[in-house]
């Protein structure tokens, strides 16, 4: 299941309402309240740089959560995630540029683009599995990018499309703090949608398909329907992330959505830990903060001038190393480390679980 059983002892659920509740124990409620308090106060104490970083993490979280839904739970590999983000961003860019559409038009329009592209990306999954599916999404990524580039050159925006900040009534969304809350709300909503999808019929169907397709089909699950549903939902959410990205940056250019971005998203769910929403969040934060951390570390070194020009390359190389290390040494990702820590303190002073199979 997507969440462990409550850890408080003597806790018994006595009706279905309790069983459905997202927060079950007092510790969980307190924890969430503390988290919300921290997240709300953060923008008032943080520097603009940190605020920007947090916004980027939220944006990445939306993308990583939707990819986790698709790959981590439904088991469909996608290497074309950047193409979907690009699609959302470009829908927004084109609509604002051509018909000056406000954000309450572009946001649903981006989601719609995502739905259509999800169907397109999902169609190969009905025939293909594993490696071949990954390759077909990779190919679709290049096709989407080509279409975006074609639009840029044909319309004469070869350097990129400028997008005005969204406004509602007289209020214009330019302030970093306002953006922080908007993105936080979107990320939280995505998380909530994912949690609820996963504990409903569709989530169970996806997990069944992931585990073994033949058995899932024998259980009466419509394989093609649920596979397409996974693609559609995931890419709709991703496109919304792309739309937000376009507004946040105020600028869309096709160069931002290269293959490396797709790889970064896959890295997020790998580094975070497959098959865990918490993993998607941790991975998104890790991968987003990583380049800045490397840059900060490099500044501590004495010979800064020499490496300053190659900071991009250093980022690349170290990112590759970290990814390799995670794949080889910690296939369960950050979530694996987190669970081990939890277990350590849960079991302390003992080393091993008293009963086999209670918790992994």
């Amino acid at each position: 299941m997507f969440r462990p059983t409550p850890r408080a002892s003597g806790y018994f659920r006595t009706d279905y309402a309790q069983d459905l509740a997202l927060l079950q124990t007092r510790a969980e409620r307190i924890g969430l309240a503390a988290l919300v308090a921290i997240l709300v106060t953060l923008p008032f104490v943080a520097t603009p740089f940190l605020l920007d970083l947090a916004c980027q993490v939220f944006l990445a979280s939306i993308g990583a959560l939707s990819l986790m839904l698709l790959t981590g739970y439904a088991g469909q590999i996608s290497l074309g995630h950047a193409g979907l983000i690009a699609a959302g961003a470009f829908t927004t860019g084109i609509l604002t540029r051509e018909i000056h559409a406000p954000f309450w038009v572009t946001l649903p329009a981006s989601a719609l683009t995502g739905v259509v592209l999800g169907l397109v990306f999902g169609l190969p999954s009905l025939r293909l599995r594993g490696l071949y599916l990954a390759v077909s999404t990779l190919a679709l990524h290049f096709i989407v990018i080509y279409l975006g580039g074609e639009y840029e050159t044909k319309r004469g925006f070869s350097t990129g499309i400028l997008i005005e900040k969204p406004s509602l009534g007289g209020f214009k969304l330019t302030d970093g703090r306002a953006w922080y809350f908007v993105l936080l709300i979107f990320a939280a909503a995505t998380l909530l949608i994912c949690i609820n999808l996963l504990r409903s019929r569709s989530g169970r169907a996806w997990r069944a398909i992931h585990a073994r397709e033949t058995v899932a089909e024998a259980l009466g699950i419509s394989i093609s329907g649920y596979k397409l549903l996974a693609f559609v939902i995931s890419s709709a959410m991703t496109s919304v992330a792309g739309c937000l990205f376009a507004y946040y940056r105020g600028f869309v250019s096709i160069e931002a959505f290269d293959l490396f971005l797709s790889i970064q998203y896959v890295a997020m769910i790998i580094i975070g830990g497959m098959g865990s929403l918490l993993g998607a969040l941790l991975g998104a934060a890790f991968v987003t903060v990583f380049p800045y951390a490397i840059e900060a570390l490099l500044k501590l070194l004495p010979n800064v001038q020499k490496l300053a020009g190659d900071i991009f390359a250093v980022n690349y190389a170290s990112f590759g190393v970290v990814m390799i290390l995670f794949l080889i040494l910690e296939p369960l990702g950050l979530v694996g480390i987190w669970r081990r820590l939890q277990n350590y303190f849960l079991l302390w002073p003992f080393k091993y679980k008293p009963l086999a199979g209670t918790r992994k």
Partner: protein
Amino acid sequence: MQLLINIVVLASIYALIACGYVLIYRVSRVLNLAHGELMMFGAYLVLACSSLFAGHPVMALCAAVILSLVTGALVYIFLMRKMTGEMVLAAILTTVALGILVRGVVVLVWSSQQQYPAQALGISNPTFTLPGDGHISLWSLVLVLTNLAAYGALFGFLRFGRWGMRMRAAGQNPLLAAQRGINLHGVYALAWSLSTLTGALAGILMALDSGVTGSMPVIALKAFPAALVGGLDSLGGALIGALIVAGAEVLLIYYVDPLLSDVVPFLVLVAMLFVRPWGLFGTREELDRV
């Protein structure tokens, strides 16, 4: 005529790169997405060797080729060996990560500017005029010939060579092969080094022809559809797949739109995946789950 030459040269480039994908996939069912980066690494090795063996272009080239052979084996021994028997996705992602790493290191060591190993080695690149008013540069011609030689050698090796037979056995059924006493790690390492060798040959010859930049791996990514169209586990298929992809690319660029260059191979790939996912000459297979 010029179109035909362009197609043949591009097809040779794709075929020489594609056989690297095929070799590794056929033997170990791993898709090597770092192939482009390893190829670029081979091209940069020429630069390194040209300064090491100044004035001896032949020695420098030989050294670079041998070094790339060693690189492939080292990649397997230190990295991919640990991924043997892991999930398909994990193995692919490891190669992706390796590619990122190599790309970063290459830029760190050699900078991202365009460089010309041919100048560093002191070799010229004359252009020949063929009957029918077609032009071909010396190194493109060498590339076409190398491609043919490489395919001939690989066919012979896999068909008649002792280790070639072992490689085929390991590809068909690794468990049975291992039980018959075939050294699987040795076979895999050999596949990796041969694959890197052919990739590096392509990279070196392309670099001699038109210089080398950090964007070289894109070409290898475009060669991947060639391998898949022909069938990922069929060497002869890769040759024909390369011809199809290169033909489509050159003709579409010429008659429709030059910007199409980057997508044509992938369009061909998608079309192929819809019609015959396992390629023209590949074996039909059930693939693992994630």
